[in-house]
């Protein structure tokens, strides 16, 4: 996942719609990832019995590790996709 790695030198020139679109797309992606992460880590770490409104120590620790692992999975999947892009398969659009 790259975040706003877009180049661009002159700091006060007119705004470039192309670049803003790319920045928006990247923002959307980070947001989407965050929403899915919230959902996935809830499923992995939070019991649905709701005996208390607090996160217990186990749940808190589980969440911390869950987020770290989610980032690692993101990196790992990115590597496999890149490798695939040079080979004979890849993410396919409609």
């Amino acid at each position: 996942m790259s975040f706003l790695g877009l180049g661009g030198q002159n700091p006060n020139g007119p705004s470039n719609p192309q670049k803003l679109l790319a920045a928006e797309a990247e923002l959307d992606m980070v947001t989407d990832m965050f929403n899915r992460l919230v959902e996935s880590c809830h499923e992995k770490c939070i019991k649905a019995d709701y005996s208390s409104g607090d996160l217990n120590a186990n749940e808190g620790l589980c969440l911390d590790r869950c987020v770290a692992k989610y980032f690692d999975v993101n990196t790992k999947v990115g590597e496999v996709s890149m490798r695939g892009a040079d080979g004979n398969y890849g993410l396919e659009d409609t």
Partner: protein
Amino acid sequence: MDQLNNREQQEFQQLVEQKQMKDFMRLYSSLVQRCFTDCVNDFTSKALSSREESCLEKCSEKFLKHSERVGQRFQEQNAALMQKR
């Protein structure tokens, strides 16, 4: 972010605020849906039972703490990722 010029950063900032608004609302809707799914299972009455009320209270509190903690860790990991580049 420093690769966008000043004007672009300004426009981008507006965009970010709009998105955060939508994002916040989406998170809220998903909180309502999750706690409804987990806590409400009796459809013999149209009023929430006290048991359901109590479950909803804890479910919401827990979800809020959950998303706050995940949000913090997410930002830390994201910041670490930015520095590596």
